[in-house]
């Protein structure tokens, strides 16, 4: 779309706003709540129930968002329902949210919407948003106060009409190993102007294999200072001006709030719309994006970071729950066997029965569940009315409403059982599998479907089901090879969804189970490799400073790092030198360049001298020659041409000795052609005043006590040394 069109629309929007600037301040705060995440990460559960109604610590997620909006002073909320809209609307109608004083909840329903962008366009058409509004999705948990962020937003807006959005961020360190935040989302890079808090760069899909991110150089040119963060978490709470809606309407290709809208605004320099950030410190905000964040946010709630939205506070008509010692939350009317062990940080819902010798820890058990004896439940989320028979084992899994687990069934970490699945006796569900009564959809027809390639991991071709299912429960397949027949043990009901290729390896990243130990070691090894890659790729300006060695190589320190460093340094110098030869760069310039390299690698002048000499010799040996004498001639020429360069690093005798040693080393290893010429070239160097006699004599003295093999070159140049000795004695 043309820039002109954008400008016109924005001007219109601006005019609409500026009509009553005073009204704006007094206007009650509105909010748009997207009751659909437009992703498929919670499949197969979301095939049957919308994500916002999934229980989070026994309370449907949307309640956390609505309770927060109400407490934050929002007067009117538009709940945008798309997938399973009827369920959402029914739930809200039966909840207390419709009967709150000073807090109106209105639902907007649409079925043919496939992205957040479409939803906002529809809301714009309805013309219900009149002032600043909070844009949030129904799976966000927060307890922050909006007052300050809103105040800042309004003040900025008053000064600069282009400040259309304030994004809430929070500090949270990503794991250096997995390159993802604790919420299971990818590491996020943001560039923020430290003074104005303007957001300048946003990248959540950085390519870690390269280990670099690219910033537009204009960013650096235009802003006096920018700070680049990777330790901020995007809370997905935005305070927007009404222009945001019109921007979505103008740019009909904006789908995703971050990937398209935010990046679009940041790249678009015609209109100059600006996005600012507001960082929260003591309050909590997080969005449940995947199974991992479901797990983490649940634990945060149990640990009361989200206070007052915790199970024992009745913030949304939830059942009375008592908090006991060691973070145990218990609702009323629980039947618990005397010998059952309920560990810390566990929530047990109303009317649940727990049999003898069962062990439960770090888990959430819903309402009306029946748990048999000798059951082990660890780090799991059991929803309502689940029946778990004797001797089952559940570790780090999600079990939805109405599931029945027959005696002795085992769920491996990361398993998700969707509604009403039945697991047969003593059946072992393999790790990370997802089981549902519904078959895996074959075509991209769901209203929840998205076209993003990276989100499509939940859908695969139907034909692959059979194969994967067979392989995943190999011992059970003998009775039937028919794909339609459930293979969940005797009496089991449900289909194991296959995980598509490529998705397999990513599964552990986003599952409820903690990352397995072997994956972590694998990753940290991979990370070490990455670092080496970066080091070798020195031509690109490295962003990390840790590779600069602070140990002094000339002190004979054979630390790995410094050794590596000197090798790279030598290569760099050689490249510089060769380029200088090819392009006829002036000697002074080459000196400058080598000096800068020397600084960046923290090298001594001896290293430089050695490296320069090494490059010169390499050049000499590469120059075509037919005989030893010709090679000697070439060497002499090169030394004559570049002696100034070499001399600039030969400040003291030590450096000269270094050159001799270097030369010696070359003759032994990389350039054996030189070995017969050693004494002659030494002579040339002496003639050109590059080496002083003292240096050569000291070198000879040093070699005196060395091994026989080391003395080859001293022997060769014995005559020359002898001559030097005599000459100096004569002088005396």
């Amino acid at each position, binding site marked *: 779309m043309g820039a002109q069109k954008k400008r016109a629309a924005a001007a219109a929007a601006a005019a609409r706003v500026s009509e009553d600037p005073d009204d704006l301040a007094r206007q009650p705060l509105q909010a748009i709540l997207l009751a659909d995440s437009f992703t498929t990460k919670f499949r197969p559960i979301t095939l049957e129930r919308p994500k916002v109604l999934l229980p989070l610590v026994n309370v449907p997620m949307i309640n956390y968002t609505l309770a927060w909006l109400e407490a934050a002073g929002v007067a009117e909320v538009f709940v945008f329902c798309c997938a399973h809209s009827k369920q959402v609307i029914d739930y809200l109608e039966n909840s207390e949210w419709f009967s709150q004083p000073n807090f109106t909840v209105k639902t907007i329903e649409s079925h043919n919407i496939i992205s957040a962008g479409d939803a906002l366009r529809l809301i714009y058409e309805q013309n219900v948003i009149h002032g600043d509004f909070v844009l949030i999705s129904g799976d966000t948990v927060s307890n922050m106060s909006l007052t300050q962020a809103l105040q800042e937003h309004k003040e900025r807006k008053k000064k600069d009409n282009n400040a259309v959005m304030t994004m809430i961020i*929070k*500090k949270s*360190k990503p794991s250096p190993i*997995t390159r993802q935040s604790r919420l299971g989302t990818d590491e996020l890079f943001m560039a923020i102007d430290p003074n104005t808090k303007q957001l300048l760069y946003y990248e959540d899909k950085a390519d870690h294999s390269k280990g670099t991110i690219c910033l537009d150089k204009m960013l650096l040119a235009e802003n006096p200072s920018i700070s680049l963060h990777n330790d901020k978490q995007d809370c997905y709470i935005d305070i927007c001006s009404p222009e945001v809606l019109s921007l979505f309407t103008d740019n009909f290709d904006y789908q995703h709030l971050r990937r398209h809208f935010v990046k679009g605004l940041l790249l678009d320099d015609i209109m100059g719309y600006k996005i600012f950030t507001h960082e929260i410190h003591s309050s*909590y905000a997080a969005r449940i994006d995947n199974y991992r964040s479901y797990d983490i946010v649940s634990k945060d709630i149990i640990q009361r*970071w989200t206070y*007052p939205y915790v199970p024992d506070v009745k*913030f949304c008509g939830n059942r009375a729950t008592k*908090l006991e010692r060691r973070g145990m939350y218990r609702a009323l009317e629980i039947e618990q066997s005397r010998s059952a062990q309920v560990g810390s940080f566990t929530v047990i819902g109303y009317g649940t029965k727990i049999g003898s010798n069962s062990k439960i820890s770090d888990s959430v058990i819903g309402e009306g569940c029946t748990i048999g004896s000798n059951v082990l439940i660890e780090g799991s989320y059991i929803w309502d009315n689940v029946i778990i028979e004797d001797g089952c084992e559940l570790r780090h899994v999600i079990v939805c409403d109405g599931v029945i687990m027959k005696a002795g069934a085992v769920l491996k970490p990361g398993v998700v059982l969707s509604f009403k699945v039945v697991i047969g006796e003593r059946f072992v569900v393999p790790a990370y599998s997802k089981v549902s009564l519904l078959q895996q959809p074959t075509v991209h027809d769901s209203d929840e479907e998205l076209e993003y390639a990276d989100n499509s991991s939940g859908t695969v071709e139907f034909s692959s089901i059979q194969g994967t299912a067979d392989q995943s429960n190999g011992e059970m397949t003998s009775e039937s090879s028919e794909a339609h027949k459930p293979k969940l043990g005797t009496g089991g009901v449900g289909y194991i969804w296959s995980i598509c290729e490529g998705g397999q390896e990513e599964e552990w990243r986003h599952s409820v189970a903690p990352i397995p130990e072997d994956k972590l070691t694998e990753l940290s090894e991979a990370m070490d490799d990455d670092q080496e890659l970066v080091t070798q790729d020195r031509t690109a300006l490295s962003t990390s400073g840790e590779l600069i060695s602070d140990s002094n190589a000339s002190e004979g320190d054979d630390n790995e790092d410094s050794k590596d460093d000197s090798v790279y340094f030598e290569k760099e110098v050689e490249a510089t030198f060769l380029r200088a030869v090819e392009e006829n760069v002036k000697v002074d310039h080459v000196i400058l360049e080598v000096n800068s390299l020397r600084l960046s690698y923290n090298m001594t002048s001896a290293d430089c001298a050695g490296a320069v000499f090494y490059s010169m010799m390499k050049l000499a040996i590469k120059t075509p020659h037919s005989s030893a004498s010709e090679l000697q001639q070439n060497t002499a020429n090169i030394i004559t041409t570049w002696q100034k360069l070499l001399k600039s690093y030969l400040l003291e005798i030590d450096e000269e000795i270094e050159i001799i040693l270097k030369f010696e080393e070359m003759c032994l290893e990389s350039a054996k052609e030189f070995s017969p010429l050693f004494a002659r070239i030494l002579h040339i160097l002496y003639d050109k005043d590059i080496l002083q006699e003292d240096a050569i004599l000291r070198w000879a003295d040093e070699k005196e006590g060395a091994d026989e093999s080391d003395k080859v070159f001293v022997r060769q140049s014995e005559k020359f040394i002898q001559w030097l000795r005599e000459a100096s004695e004569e002088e005396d």
Partner: protein
Amino acid sequence: MPDTQALVNDFLNKLKKLKIEGSQATARQNAELLRSVISQQRVPYTNQAGALIDAVKAVGEQLIAANPVELAVGNIVRRVLHIIREEDLSLTTAAIGGLNLSAVSDDENDDDRDGDSTLSAAAVAAAARSTLRPPSLQTLLEDTPVSAAVPQTSSSGGDSEGKSKSADKSSRSRKLKHDVIEAVNEQIADIVICHEQIAEQAVEHIHQNEVILTLGSSRTVLEFLFAAKEKKRSFRVFVAEGAPRYQGHLLAKELVARGLQTTLITDSAVFAMISRVNMVIVGAHAVMANGGVIAPVGMNLVALAAQKHAVPFVVLAGSHKLCPLYPHNPEVLLNELRSPSELLDFGEFSDCMDFGSGSGSPLLHVVNPAFDYVPPKLVSLFITDAGGHNPSYMYRLIADYYSADDLVVQRRATAGN
């Protein structure tokens, strides 16, 4: 009564979402709410008290369940119930004295209309019990002719039907409601001015050149200290900051604004300073029936330090903070665990709480309780709006304020029988 319902819901919401800060505000709003419940309640001809008690209990039950940790709610509900009983009793006795009529015999008349015979019977029983119980300090002081009622109630029979005068009855029913509202108003006024009433006693306790230590911030303590200051007492105040909410900082600021010599110390320095202190004066969240105190966290340490150095530990509490319950497991059940973010910054510690690696259960737990329980043996003196009392005397004071029938508000059906 739709508007009362809305008011109740509104207040319930506020309680549930912890939107009301401080027990005084809670108590005042609660009393005001119950007043409007009473005034909206349609009173039948007879058994007015029963109907009112019924209405108040119904609302009270919801209110107490909304936030069990805020004990002031239950206190006020019980207080209002007690007021209704007392007013009913005094009216009954007055009527008996004047007309020589049995107050209770009217009940049989209207049972079909009332439809709640058990409750009226319960009211009778309650009235009878309250007349039979030993005279409380308050009734003794007010000099009510309690004993006169006893023979009349017990001898109530069916002989009074003809003699009852309907005009008199209606005026009496109106009078009961009126009296109750009047008494609740007084109660509200008491809550509002409790600070002043407590503060009036300040000169008796704070002497010249004394050093007073307090922890955190309490409005009552603030007023108490000001009152002493106004009476030209010159003394110094040590304020322990009251981590993690640091309300002591605010208190110190206000004290300095009023010209009091103030020293701010950390909570951990309390023991080091206590030897220089003449008296510890603190506020409370609630006072239990055994004389134990639910107070801001850190108070138990201060009380122990005070005991070690034999420094008087004085607790100021308005009468709305007197709770007729005995503490059972007070460290947990009557406590409120607040957000750990008051203790540490989430961002800095986010890598300690990455559950994605390792065993999946976090190694770092942060616990932030709001209250401490100070056992009665550590408290030297309570100062309420009714004067200074020993911890062992609290049960007596509570017996004056609440009826024994109302101690359990929840089990409405069985409470009366």
